[in-house]
């Protein structure tokens, strides 16, 4: 029942979108080459699905994305758990992080090419950077905000490191960390396009950039649609993961966000 209603809403939503889009074309009197019609884009979507291009690019992008994101997350969480407990070290590192964080991964690209060459690695590195800081910061702040009660319980029962870390601190801060993972996932996915602009010969980002350079704006929009849908699926995926962990680990108060 709920599924059906959702589907109906999605259909209404997208029909509306397509109508508005077609109206813009008619009213604005744009050239097909400059703003393709929904029909043309539909054809492009079909064509790159049918000739398999889409799946090739998708696979490559997902591979890069997951390598970049997962390595980033693992490193950032471990670092965050440690730094969250070492207030004095964090006081020194924090200003550096705060200055580096607001810098777009795009700005780093000359150095990324220098250190990481072209092809897969720069894309992975850009995704890594994009997700690293949100996860690191949310982990550190999660650890620092842990309900003191849990730490006192641990003290009371004489639970020492490293058990303190994985029995108390990690689970206690997890729901907040998960929130960071969630935000980082979105941020990283958004930088996929930027990441695949540097010498990559494949991937959804490349598909868009290449289509743009080949003046195939219909494929650009098709690519945008694919990126949007994949991003949405990833988002739902991590939400499911969060919920699974929550269920599995019992009553972690549902994440603050």
């Amino acid at each position: 029942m709920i599924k059906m209603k959702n589907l109906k809403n999605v259909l209404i939503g997208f029909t509306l979108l397509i109508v508005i889009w077609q109206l813009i074309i008619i009213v604005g009197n744009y050239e097909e080459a400059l703003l393709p019609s929904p029909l043309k884009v539909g054809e492009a979507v079909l064509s790159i699905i049918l000739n398999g291009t889409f799946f090739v690019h998708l696979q490559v992008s997902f591979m890069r994305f997951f390598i970049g994101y997962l390595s980033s997350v693992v490193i950032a969480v471990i670092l965050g758990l440690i730094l969250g407990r070492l207030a004095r070290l964090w006081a020194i590192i924090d200003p550096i992080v705060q200055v580096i964080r607001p810098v777009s991964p795009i700005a780093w690209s000359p150095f990324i090419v220098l250190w990481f060459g072209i092809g897969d690695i720069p894309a992975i590195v850009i995704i890594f950077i994009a997700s690293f800081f949100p996860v690191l910061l949310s982990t550190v702040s999660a650890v620092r905000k842990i309900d003191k009660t849990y730490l006192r319980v641990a003290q009371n029962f004489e639970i020492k490191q490293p058990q303190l870390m994985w029995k108390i601190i990690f689970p206690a801060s997890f729901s907040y960390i998960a929130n960071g993972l969630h935000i980082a996932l979105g941020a990283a996915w958004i930088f996929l396009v930027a990441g695949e602009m540097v010498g990559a010969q494949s991937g959804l980002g490349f598909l868009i950039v290449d289509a743009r350079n080949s003046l195939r704006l219909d494929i650009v929009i098709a690519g945008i649609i694919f990126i949007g849908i994949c991003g949405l699926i990833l988002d739902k995926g991590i939400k499911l993961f969060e919920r699974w962990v929550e269920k599995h680990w019992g009553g972690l108060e549902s994440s603050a966000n």
Partner: protein
Amino acid sequence: MTNQSPIISVNKITKTFFNRGQPQKILDQISFDVQRGELISILGKSGCGKSTLLNLIGGFDLEKEGEILLDGQVVNQPSRRCVMLMQNYGLLPWRSVLKNVELPLENTGMSKKEIRERAKYYLHMVGLGDKLDAFPKELSGGMQQRVAIARAFVIQPEVILMDEPFAALDAFTRYYLQDELIKIQEKENTTILLVTHDIDEAIYLSNRIFMLSANPGRIYQELKIPSSRPRDRSSLQFQKYREIIFRNFHFNHPIAPIELNV
């Protein structure tokens, strides 16, 4: 209860907090002894320093003047021998009921099997033998408090400190748990120090009641309740103690009549 040396000995404890640089004496020269197996209640208004005192005794807060001894030894860190029952139960929400109760045993060198059996035993004792795999949030407040009680007793500590253990429960559940507590305590012969602002609770449970005043916190009265337990809440003797305490807190009738015409 016995003529042994006291299990807890509090000697001239003074605690000062600094609020915006201003020193504020919360506890002033508090001294008392607790004998093994006693159940002591500390009764006082909100904010008078009850939790602060308990934290000091438990070793969670070490900054103070004066000395606290647990079984003759100076308390300088929290230990398993003196377990604190937190105001909000302090259960780990990511662990099942059983695993919460197993927690304190995990580093004691006991085998997994032993740990499990001991935990189950105490959970059965508090009547939660059928909730082993539930998570804390799936339980009512009363059940959560029972898990916390099981977790406190499972390592058979010498002392249990309780910070308003039943305050968040409704009256009916509260009565029920109070009875449970008495039975377990008598069976295990654990020393219990209980903080509360519920007069009836203090009378119903305690061997002795310390009344704490506010600003600064001082023990200004000690009340011995020699009658055997369980006590009859509607008995005349019970009423007598109520009246004593009411009078002490000037609460039989409100202190300041309410201003109705401004």
